[in-house]
């Protein structure tokens, strides 16, 4: 059980969330993050603690800063003020630290971003061989294992263009898993998929969640959030509006913005 000392510190009123986690460790610590794109204040004083084993779903209107926040965690975006500590390592301009973090944080993109000139298996083996310096046989075994985990082991020798969208996204998940990350980031993983394929990707993500992976998901899939999330976050205008457990979040939203958002998406 988590005691008060480990309640997440953030600007919005504490919703009194009771977090069940597998270990009492802080996976991601975001402290007063501020980011500007030129004159536009994209992230406003964002603070959040993500514990190991948590599954956090971030939702909110477009342009609210959800993806920006996610991409800060593996330093695909930089920031002007604030601190970000991932897995005990503080992210600064230090390239070595950044690469260290990126090895432990896997990311799945909205548009899959598979490497089209490599087969599915080669896509999955690339990073373990060249970043973790694993021997090819070992990397291949891990790749095949993860492809089986996302339930497409037979597609190993195909090229990404030959697969459907849902299959490509699952390959992207397998590719991220091959680095054996401690944290997985999902940036709207099902937004570019046909509705029939959304299910298979969400099922994969639920299975990952049940395996105890720490996950940060930007998504509008409320069904998934209800099923797998430990906390729901609403972000708008670059700041965290509300945090709560999924059931409370949906049945009893506190903030006006949350109520408005839920009214708009749950139709």
């Amino acid at each position: 059980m988590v005691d008060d000392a480990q309640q997440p510190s953030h600007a919005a009123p504490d919703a009194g969330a009771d977090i069940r986690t597998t270990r009492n460790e802080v996976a991601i610590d975001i402290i007063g993050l501020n980011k500007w794109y030129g004159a536009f204040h994209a992230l406003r004083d964002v603070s959040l603690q993500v514990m190991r084993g948590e599954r956090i779903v971030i939702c909110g209107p477009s342009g609210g800063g959800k993806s920006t926040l996610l991409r800060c965690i593996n330093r695909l975006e930089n920031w002007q003020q604030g601190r970000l500590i991932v897995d005990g390592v503080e992210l600064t301009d230090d390239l070595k630290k950044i690469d260290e973090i990126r090895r432990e944080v896997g990311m799945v993109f909205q548009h899959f971003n598979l490497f089209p000139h490599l087969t599915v298996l080669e896509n999955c083996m690339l990073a373990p061989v060249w970043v973790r310096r694993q021997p090819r046989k070992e990397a291949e075994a891990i790749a095949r294992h993860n492809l089986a985990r996302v339930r497409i082991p037979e597609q190993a020798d195909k090229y990404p263009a030959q697969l459907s969208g849902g299959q490509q996204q699952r390959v992207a998940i397998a590719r991220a898993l091959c680095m054996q990350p401690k944290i997985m980031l999902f940036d709207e993983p099902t937004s570019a998929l046909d509705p029939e394929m959304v299910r298979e990707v969400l099922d994969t993500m639920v299975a990952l969640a049940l395996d105890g992976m720490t996950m940060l998901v930007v998504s509008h899939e409320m069904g998934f959030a209800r099923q797998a999330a430990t906390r729901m976050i609403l972000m708008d205008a670059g700041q965290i509006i509300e945090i709560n457990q999924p059931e409370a979040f949906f049945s009893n939203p506190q903030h006006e913005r949350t109520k408005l958002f839920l009214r708009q998406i749950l139709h």
Partner: protein
Amino acid sequence: MSSIPSAGFVRGAMIVPAAPPAVQASVRGWIRGHLFNSIGNAILTVLGIIALAALAWPTFRFLLIDAVWRGADRSACLSETAGREVGACWPFIAAKFDQLMYGFYPASQRWRVDLVYACGALLLAPLLVPRVPYKTLNAVFFFGVFPLLAGVLLVGGVLGLTEVETRLWGGLLVTLVISYAGIVGSLPLGILLALGRRSELPVVRGLSVVFIEFWRGVPLITVLFFATYMLPLFLPGNWKIDGLLRVLIGVILFSGAYLAEVVRAGLQAIPRGQFEAARALGLGYWRMMGLVILPQALRLVIPGLVNSFIALFKDTTLVLIVAIFDLLGQLRAAFADPNWATPVTLFTGFAFAGMIYFVVSFAMSRYAMFTEQRLNAR
């Protein structure tokens, strides 16, 4: 407005996919369908045939039908002696063939040039065929070992081989040496410059931009001139660089700047997501470029690269300006021989050289197309 039908529809058995109807593929059918399917097309087809005949027939007559095939000197190729209209003077080419191929390379040492040609062909052929394995080893040999081997064999001076000054090299030998060095040397340089131009480090980017703009801003002739005649003035007294080597360096730097922009176009076309995915996996800059970005970018710009290579191959003729006799230079020297002066000598010579240039350029172009089709078939 028509009324909406009231009955719905529910399919029974699914339709099994069937084969498409057989198309009667015949030549007559194709001709009728593509060349004569409208008045406009028919007229254009007829005009095209007339134009083709007007150009092709005289060429055919000149090169084959009216051509002289045997003879010892100019008299064989004069219309007075032959008693008819004379076409190409092939004995002229036969007589000058060694010069056109080797320049003034000593006759007794020409086996070295032949050996270099043979090694080059033996290493290049398997590299071009996709199915042949051990490509990496092959590439190391062709791009790494072969130049050294060729350098030693052609220049000599070691291993008991007599030294042959580059001054004596000429003809197709020089053309191929400059083309090979130019292509193999300028592509890595071009890639590095393109990466440098896109770099976030201001010094690297600045230097790359300056380099590219400078070398693109001067004509190749000026570069060759400067490299051959001006460069020795800038070098410390007793430091002499071989004339051909100076030309090679100039060509590599010049071509590298052009290729840099071609490669940069390819890099720009790669979606940002590819860079992000590679970074997110923890790949460093060089691994990202080498494993993910450049393989895709280079594939995209194959047409541009081959274009530059073909242009480079033909630009080698400019070395005549610095008194190096490539194929065309050697040909012009051959024209000066009074023993073979006839009205058709020039045409014959240029036709021969033109055919060589065309065959090599066309081969490069076709191979590039073949490569593109193979890569896009995935």
